[in-house]
């Protein structure tokens, strides 16, 4: 069935792909297993997908995750775009430092962000601002990294844009605000959308930061999955994972497509 590769680069590629995707393939296959236990194959069934559809806790967690991602991404989209534009456009002292610090959440380990946020919220945040851990603290923590991702993607889009575009709009009678909304923003839109999709997927995927900053009762989908897996693998989680992988894959593909089709039109 699988063509046997003759050259070593092809073999290496095949091995690597197996290494990366075989576990996922196994998971996908077992999500259709009739057996309650993952180790045995007892026949094809869609029972776990049906169970998933009627699982209220999964529904609630999914709703929480979607809500967190949507709010965090929406806020980050506005701030991240403004940040990228501001960094590209204006010169001010300490700009390099500012840029570096803004993009830091991309490389700082999640665990550091998670612990730092928790420590901050439960000490200073609680003492002086009366902040309780809740859904909103998850959103706030997610904005930290969503903002950086969106700003990076929008920045790279900006770098490929003719710097005279805004001037051309001003020249034709547009006020600075009109130049931004009628010219710069539409030109940036593919970048903003791609950045949003990326941030959305990352937010949906996040377990670490969410579980550190979540208040009582607030549970995102990854948190719910983790708590179930701890007490043993269940086939309905396999089914859920397949759904999640497919959804993320499609979103990532769409984001990539947007970036490419609009980005390299010249």
């Amino acid at each position, binding site marked *: 069935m699988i063509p046997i590769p003759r050259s070593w680069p092809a073999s290496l590629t095949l091995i690597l792909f197996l290494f990366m995707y075989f576990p996922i393939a196994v998971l996908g296959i077992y999500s259709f297993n009739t057996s309650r236990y993952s180790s045995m194959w007892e026949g094809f069934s869609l029972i776990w997908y049906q169970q998933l559809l009627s699982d209220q806790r999964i529904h609630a967690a999914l709703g929480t995750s979607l809500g967190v991602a949507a709010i965090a991404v929406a806020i980050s989209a506005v701030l991240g775009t403004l940040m990228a534009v501001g960094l590209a456009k204006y010169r001010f002292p300490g700009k390099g430092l500012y840029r570096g610090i803004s993009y830091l959440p991309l490389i700082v380990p999640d665990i550091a962000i998670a612990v730092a946020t928790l420590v901050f919220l439960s000490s200073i945040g609680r003492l002086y601002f009366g902040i309780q851990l809740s859904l909103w603290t998850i959103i706030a923590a997610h904005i930290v990294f969503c903002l950086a991702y969106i700003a990076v993607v929008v920045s790279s889009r900006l770098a490929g844009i*003719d710097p*005279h*575009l805004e*001037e*051309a*709009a*001003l*020249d*034709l*009678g*547009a*006020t600075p605000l*009109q130049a931004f909304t*009628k*010219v710069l923003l*539409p*030109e940036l*839109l593919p970048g903003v959308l791609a950045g949003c999709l990326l941030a959305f997927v990352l937010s949906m995927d996040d377990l670490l930061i969410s579980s550190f900053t979540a208040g009582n009762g607030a549970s995102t989908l990854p948190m719910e999955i983790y708590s179930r897996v701890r007490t043993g693998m269940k086939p309905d989680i396999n089914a859920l994972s397949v759904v999640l992988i497919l959804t993320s894959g499609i979103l990532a593909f769409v984001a990539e497509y947007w970036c490419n089709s609009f980005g390299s*039109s*010249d």
Partner: protein
Amino acid sequence: MEQTLAAVRTDLAFDIELQTVLKTFGDEAAVQDLTLQIRPGEFFSILGPSGCGKTTTLRLIAGFETPTAGSVCIQGQDMTQVPPYQRPVNTVFQSYALFRHLNVWENVAFGLKLQKLPREEVRSRVATALEQVKLDGFAKRTPAQLSGGQQQRVALARALVNRPAVLLLDEPLGALDLKLRKEMQLELAHLHRSLGLTFVMVTHDQEEALSLSDRIAVMNQGRLEQMGTPSQIYEEPETAFVADFIGDTNLLRGRVSHSNGSTVQLVTEAGLPVWTDRRSEWNGTLPQKLVVSIRPEKIRVSQLEAAGHDAHNCYAGRLRQVMYLGPNIQFQIELATGEHLTVLQPNRARLPALDTEVQVSWSAGDGRALVA
């Protein structure tokens, strides 16, 4: 109040007036002490090497830059502090700066829509503008689907459709290949004539400036070197820079040794005596150091034995290089004193062989004496 009114009236002789403009970026003066007036309906070019301040000058007129000192008047009104979107000028950018998310029609209609003109008027004016640049039928295309020359035309139409008082062109043909550039030059000249609009073009291409402009301002290192008609700039350069930058020339530097009523003789460092016409402005005191600029086409080359001795300046030299240019032939001639001269001759006579002795000659009136 009366005085300002009077001032406005006299200013109306000019569409653009820059008064002792200074523009600095940090410590660097991009433009300094620049005063120039551009007349209505003129095709005015600002010419100079890269970094001479010509683009900054255009941006000062467009309003993208504000002068550090001095003033910018457009059609008699002080516009020094007026933002670009309130100035009656439109710009064609070197990179065209077309809006990629809009099609050709929407690009051209952009300015008119901002003015909130009635839909019918927008439609008819966009159609006219596209016709003027020969792009009717391309309205629905996006900029990415157009060639460089077509994008250039869209940029032109997008500016012209607003009926600006002055059209600003920043190296408009710089990105086009030679053949297309020649074509667009003709079209620009035609547009200028048929619209009767004031054009201000920035270019580093002297040929383009000479062939298109009514008047040219030559800039160097942020300063205006000379302003005049193309023939004035070419035939009567005021500085050695202008003589050298516009076309090819031979510059001979030296000290004044003799002078009579109408001619001056200077001697170069190598000892070559050169006669040149005395400029009328030197009737009083004569500068001690002069540069003479002689265009390659003004120098005659002859075989030694056939030399005529009627010219003021007549020297023996050796033919060091021959470049065949088709209609013309360019010679490099080394004089006995060591100077090298470039000579351009029409392709008529038989080519002399390399390293033969030749004679070069020109009369005092062929050169242009400049203060060194």
